[in-house]
């Protein structure tokens, strides 16, 4: 039987040592790499295609959830966390197995056995992790940054650098200071998850960062365009115009 290839993504040295130690008496399992941050994790998953990852949630640069969000093909995941009320509730709700640090050998073995049994089988609903990530975002309130893949790397854009979002069929194109990025999400999703103090849906297909607007110009009867700091012009519907007026107090 082929070895099961494991990648450990965890920012603390002793925590990585512990996982390796506990894997020792499991023949047929091979640790193919270790990462101390999310960027490294994303790169190694892409290059080495592990069967199973141990994933910490709170990590530098990229959280465990953000890492999963940018992966096309997700390996089996065993989440590890020390204390994260939101994440733990999300795990429970979505019946995702996780290890609560510190954990016992028995607990570790049972989580491992379950994960191993799932490898290669299509039993796990493909969108389970997706649902989990969404649930956590919801529980934590509004998004504070948007993460996406750019070429071989990963880009993290803080909200203040985003100028506007435009819907494109089933996707949303996000325009930010240095370019644009396509996310497989709906406008409704962003309307619900971006802070309303900063972003406003001014048109059926557009959401705009209020702080980026320099002026509003009439476009046709009942229609306006918002001129952004970058010079770009965004259509504003009649309702959008009303909402902007209220928000910006003019």
């Amino acid at each position, binding site marked *: 039987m082929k070895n099961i290839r494991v990648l450990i993504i965890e*920012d*603390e*040295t*002793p*925590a990585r*040592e*512990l996982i390796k*130690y506990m894997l020792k008496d499991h023949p047929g399992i091979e640790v193919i790499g270790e990462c*101390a*941050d999310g*960027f*490294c994790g994303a790169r190694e998953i892409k290059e080495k295609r592990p069967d199973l990852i141990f994933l910490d949630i*709170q990590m*530098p*640069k990229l959280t465990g959830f953000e890492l999963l969000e940018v992966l096309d093909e997700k390996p089996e995941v065993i989440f590890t966390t*020390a*204390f*994260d009320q939101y994440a733990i509730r999300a795990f429970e709700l979505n019946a995702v197995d996780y290890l*609560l*640090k*510190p*954990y016992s050998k028995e607990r570790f073995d049972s989580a491992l056995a379950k994960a191993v049994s799932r490898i290669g089988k299509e039993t796990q609903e493909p969108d389970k992790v997706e649902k989990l990530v969404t649930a956590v975002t919801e529980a*934590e*309130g509004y998004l*504070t*940054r948007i993460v996406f893949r750019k070429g071989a790397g990963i880009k*993290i*854009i*803080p909200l203040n650098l985003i100028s506007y979002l435009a819907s494109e069929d089933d996707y949303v194109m996000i325009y930010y200071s240095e370019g644009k990025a396509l996310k497989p999400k709906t406008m409704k999703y962003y309307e619900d998850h971006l802070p309303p103090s900063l972003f406003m849906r001014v048109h059926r297909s557009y959401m705009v960062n209020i702080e980026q607007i320099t002026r509003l110009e009439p476009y046709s009867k009942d229609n306006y365009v918002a001129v952004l700091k970058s010079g770009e012009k965004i259509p504003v519907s009649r309702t959008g115009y009303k909402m902007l007026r209220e928000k910006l107090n003019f």
Partner: protein
Amino acid sequence: MTHPILENRSRVLIWCLAWVILAAGQASVIHFVYGSTTDIAVADGIISMLLYGLLGITIWFPVRYMLRSNNKVLSTIMNVILTGAVTIVLWLFITRALVRALVPEKEDYDLFWHTVLVFRVAAGVLIFFVVTLIYYLYLSATQLAEKASRQAQLEALVREGELKMLRAQINPHFLFNSLNSMSSLTLTDPMKAREMILKLSDFMRYSLSSRTDQPVTLQSEMESLRLYLEIEKVRFGERLIIEEDIQPECLTALLPGMLLQPLYENAVKHGVYESTEKVVIRTSAHKEDGLVVISVTNNIDPESVVTRKGAGIGLVNVRSRLELFFGEKADLTVTRKDDSFNVMIKFPYRKS
């Protein structure tokens, strides 16, 4: 602080009324007792009292300054007498010039002026002391009230603080991750595990016993913080570097226990948790003009995008505890640059 009379409309009214009565009284005395003409009596009464009414409002400022600064009693008295002398000389000089310019009987007025000068000066001194006394009483009353409210606030914070201590100051994330590290070390390096358990125990004991109203020395505060940082160092290894430059004379300074802890927790959270590079947490402390100046700096990864929620709440708590404990002289400043984060706090040096 605002002016005790001007801040309140009814007080202004009472003040005006008092001077109107004094003016009327003075005019009557001049007219009926001394026998001056109505012109002189009315002009002198109104102008001198109106003028004193205005001067009386302005002497609040020197009086407040003198009574608030912690000078010696003798020099305070000297200062009050000097202010009184200046006020009265000004009052006499301007009154005379104005009345003289107004009334037609200038020679009569000059004669009258010289005859009653002694009484006038006596009245001026009396009024000055009455006004000063009013201000003094007002100032003591407000200072007492301020002190009482600060005391009440402090007590409320102590109670609240005890509860918050475990929740906010020992971050559960830190606690459970440390326990996990120990669980790992028991397998790989039992001696180190034992060491870490002892450090965590000492740190926990310190933070549980430090009550907000019981000052500790900077020395013991730093000892507990070293424990905290050493525990974090076990977790993050080479990524965390600790530097210290503390002048020995600062170590005896008193401060509320666990005051500095949130600064280090922040430094670890925003520095180490968010960075893949080495992070240096540097502490320096020195004395300057009777103040203890403590500065905690950590470098931050310029590429990290700050996301953690609740950032800044820790610092707000530190600031309010600092102000409640030390009063106005304490200060906290935060300087955030692209690649570093610095918190500087200053407070009066009090010895244990």
